[in-house]
């Protein structure tokens, strides 16, 4: 039997830009295949080629036995495709969306009601069938999108980043549903930028910068790392320092913070004696851990950056007059009758990384914006370094640096003009302003790009520039809103190297993230769910809370799911 999908030397160019290099791969029938890679790696382009919505500029692609360039109609009949953001009509109700796609895909008219009933049951959307799609939560939209793509019983199901913007609980349900489908014989291609999702796929196509880096079962890739992933536990010094020193070792190709421990990956064939010496110096011990897909990815692309942050070294030591860098008490925000943040209270100590975690719509962005003075609270108080955000907003703002999602740079200004602008709004003047700009240019190595638009910068440089702009006035408190979304793992590591360095200088960091494993970098994590704070603890303590005999080492995502489910149970499943 022919493979479900056969890709032969397929490439795709958009003018000068090569989105896909020459790719060769086959995708087997009846399997769940992950199309995995960081943002910008060419996943969506390949998905669109598979759905016959784009033609490859070279090579051939056959889907269900038909060439995508020659028989798009056949492919549209035989495949179900869910684009990013699910392709739903938000002003149509659930059942109207289903009916539309049923008609378009020619689901057999007889027994249509039975099909709807089955799909509504399968997706647990039956109670919401008359609700407008725009009013559904991210998780429900995703299930409805899946139901629409399933109309007409496609042989092949193509899901483009179905888990973006969806909370971990819904994500798990989707995995289960897709598992059921493949057991019934359907071929499913699931694209994702979350490398941890790759481990759940039966087979993986790993893309990076338009190239195919790996094809096969994910275990085959992680097996190469056997004995090279390890964890340093119980160090008596700052674990961030240990990480920084470890990353500077030649033998180490990757390292991240994992709660109280430091997780590192040895280079292939490297000797571990240097690492052992390092662990001994800090009175820690090394223990082996199971390699993860992300370890393998970083290893495959040649390892992450070193552990040094030049910017942090230039930053003077910060000491605050107050014990709490940021504090809020009964912070509440209402939009009309909708409560976005419901009496949230916490204190962030100086020099810690404090994470705000939660699914989309849980209220973390609203809380975050109130804390950095961008939104006025409906009630409750918030202070930054002792300055009340209600009365001394501008004083408080001078104490903080803010990096918004998607970097918030001005693309019509050059890199230099961006730096000048941000130094200006933070009140720097004259010689000190020039000196600070020059310092930023040299530490972040921006000389080459000074006259370019930020849009033209490579991702890593763009991130450096955004960080440079936020740090221009040397703020003691740094607010980072989804700083690493849309960023590849290597650039993310470089970013965290800077952040770790700054924190070691006494800077306080507040961060929101939807990468669950990034929560591990935090000293403490506040978990938000339905506008309320449902847990606040260190990552390790959160994980310990949900550890069971079956699962002695839960991930932070496991902890998240368990805590949310417990919260739902406590609320009696209301809402």
């Amino acid at each position, binding site marked *: 039997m022919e493979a479900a999908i056969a890709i032969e030397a397929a490439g795709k160019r958009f003018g000068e830009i090569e989105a896909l290099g020459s790719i060769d791969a086959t995708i087997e029938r009846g399997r769940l295949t992950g199309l995995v890679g960081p943002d910008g790696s060419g996943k969506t382009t390949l998905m669109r080629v598979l759905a016959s*919505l784009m033609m490859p500029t070279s090579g051939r692609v056959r889907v269900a036995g038909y060439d995508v360039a*020659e*028989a798009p*109609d056949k492919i549209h009949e035989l495949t179900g495709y869910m*684009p990013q953001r*699910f392709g739903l009509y938000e002003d149509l109700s659930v059942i109207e969306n289903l009916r*539309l796609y049923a008609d378009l895909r020619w689901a057999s008219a007889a027994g249509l009601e039975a099909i709807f009933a089955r799909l509504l049951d399968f997706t647990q959307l039956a109670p919401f069938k008359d609700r407008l799609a725009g009013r559904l939560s991210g998780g429900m939209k995703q299930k409805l999108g899946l139901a629409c793509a399933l109309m007409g019983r496609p042989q092949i199901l193509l899901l483009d980043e179905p888990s973006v913007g969806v909370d971990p609980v819904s994500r798990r349900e989707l995995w289960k549903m897709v598992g059921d489908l493949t057991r019934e014989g359907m071929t499913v291609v699931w694209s994702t930028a979350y490398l941890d999702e790759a481990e759940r796929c039966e087979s993986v196509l790993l893309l990076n910068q338009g190239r195919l880096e790996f094809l096969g079962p994910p275990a085959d890739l992680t097996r190469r790392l056997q004995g090279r992933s390890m964890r340093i536990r119980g160090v008596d010094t700052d674990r961030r320092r240990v990480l920084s020193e470890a990353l500077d070792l030649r033998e180490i190709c990757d390292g991240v913070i994992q709660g109280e421990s430091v997780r590192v990956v040895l280079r292939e064939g490297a000797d571990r004696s240097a690492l052992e010496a390092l662990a001994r110096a800090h009175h820690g011990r090394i223990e082996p851990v199971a390699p993860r897909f992300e370890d393998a990815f970083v290893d495959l692309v040649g390892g992450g950056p070193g552990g040094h942050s030049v910017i942090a070294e230039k930053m003077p030591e910060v000491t605050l007059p107050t014990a709490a860098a940021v504090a809020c008490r009964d912070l509440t925000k209402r939009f009309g009758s909708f409560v976005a943040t419901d009496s949230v209270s916490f204190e962030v100590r100086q020099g810690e990384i404090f994470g705000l975690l939660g699914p989309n719509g849980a209220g973390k962005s609203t809380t975050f914006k109130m804390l950095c003075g961008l939104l006025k609270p409906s009630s409750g108080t918030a202070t930054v370094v002792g300055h009340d955000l209600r009365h001394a907003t501008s004083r408080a703002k001078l104490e903080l640096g803010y990096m918004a999602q998607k970097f918030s740079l001005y693309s019509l200004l050059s890199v230099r003009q961006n730096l000048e602008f941000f130094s200006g709004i933070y009140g720097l003047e004259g010689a000190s302003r020039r000196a600070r700009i020059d310092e930023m240019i040299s530490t972040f190595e921006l000389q080459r790009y000074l006259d370019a638009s930020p849009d033209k910068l490579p991702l890593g440089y763009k991130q450096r520039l955004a960080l440079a702009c936020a740090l221009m006035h040397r703020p003691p408190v740094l607010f980072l809103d989804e700083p690493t979304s849309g960023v590849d793992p290597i650039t993310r590591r470089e970013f965290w190297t800077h952040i770790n360095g700054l924190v070691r200088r006494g800077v306080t960091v507040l961060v929101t993230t939807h990468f669950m494993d990034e929560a591990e970098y935090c000293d403490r994590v506040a978990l938000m769910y339905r506008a309320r704070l449902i847990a606040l603890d260190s990552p390790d303590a959160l994980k310990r809370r949900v550890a069971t005999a079956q699962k002695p080492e839960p991930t932070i995502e496991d902890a998240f799911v368990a805590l949310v489910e417990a919260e739902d149970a406590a609320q009696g499943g209301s809402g």
Partner: protein
Amino acid sequence: MSEPLTRERSSRLDRRRLLALVRKETLQVVRDPSAILIAFVLPIVLLFLFAFAVSLDVRDVRLGVALEADTAEARSLAAAFAATRYFSVTPARDRRELEPLLMLGKIHGMVILPQDFDLRIGSADRGPIVQIITDATEPNTANFVSGYAEGVVSNWLAGRDTRDAEPVRLEPRFWFNPEIQSRRFLIPGAIAIVMTMIGTLLTAMVVAREWERGTMEAVMSTPASILEILLGKLMPYFGLGLLATLACALASVLLFDVPLRGSWLALLALSCSFLVPALGQGLLISALARNQFVAAQVALISGFLPALLLSGFLFEIDSMPIPIRLLTHAVAARYFVASLQTVFLAGDVWSQFLPNMLAMLTIGSIFFSIAARKTKKSLDT
């Protein structure tokens, strides 16, 4: 798995799929406040605007009349000025009384009947008998004042001469719009503007919205053909355009006192013909611009503005410079406005309608053929 290749099927038409798309679009129109706003509220606002706020008529022009000669003849002419409904007259004995009023803008002009008025009338070669001075800071009004004042004088002269037994008497008659109310030709023209908004702006925007929200991508991945997708878009907006036209026409007749001298059938036929280029243009814009902001801008500049400025709706085409006049032939609204004014004010003149409809359909088919070439069932641009 070796069926013959099925490329030609991308132009197929399936009733169930088409109906599904039309139903979806209709539901969206009904639920989308902005569509209702553009299709029904905006037209009514425009009609009110053109009916009451915009008027090209000049009324109640304040005119000073300096009666420096106190003779029966002069008084008779002064009375003729006072009698016309276009002027409200400020009488004076001396031009020096009026000059300050003109300076202050209290009057728009003045007519001076000089002391030697009788002498001037009586002279054989008959030079100018009055002096007309206008405030040219408002050129339109100034033109009107001088033109009408001259008219009053010549009318008066003609009347005076007839009294001296002249057989022929001229009396101007204005056909079709006897009171020369600009509202009567502005409102039919406004319908063309409204249809342009619905056909071009709304269509361009709703297609762009589908691109923006990613629903176009989802629909394109289904077996629906591009023809079905486009027809499913156009049919509801064609219906909406006709409904809005009907609403406008009813409002014109019932609320704004515009006569419909032609038939509803002719109006319907003309409206259908105009919707073809209007929708075609919207579709072409949406094929090129895939975001709502750009689509709206392009639709306003290439659709709304020409319909407003180059259609003969506000500005007479005959008084435009030749290059611009030539350009108006490419504007579908031009043919529609001319025919609408005819169908409302004159009646069914099919000898005018048919060539105009042909012109509109030609422009429309050009738009459609370019749009069809540019729109593929593909995300490749």
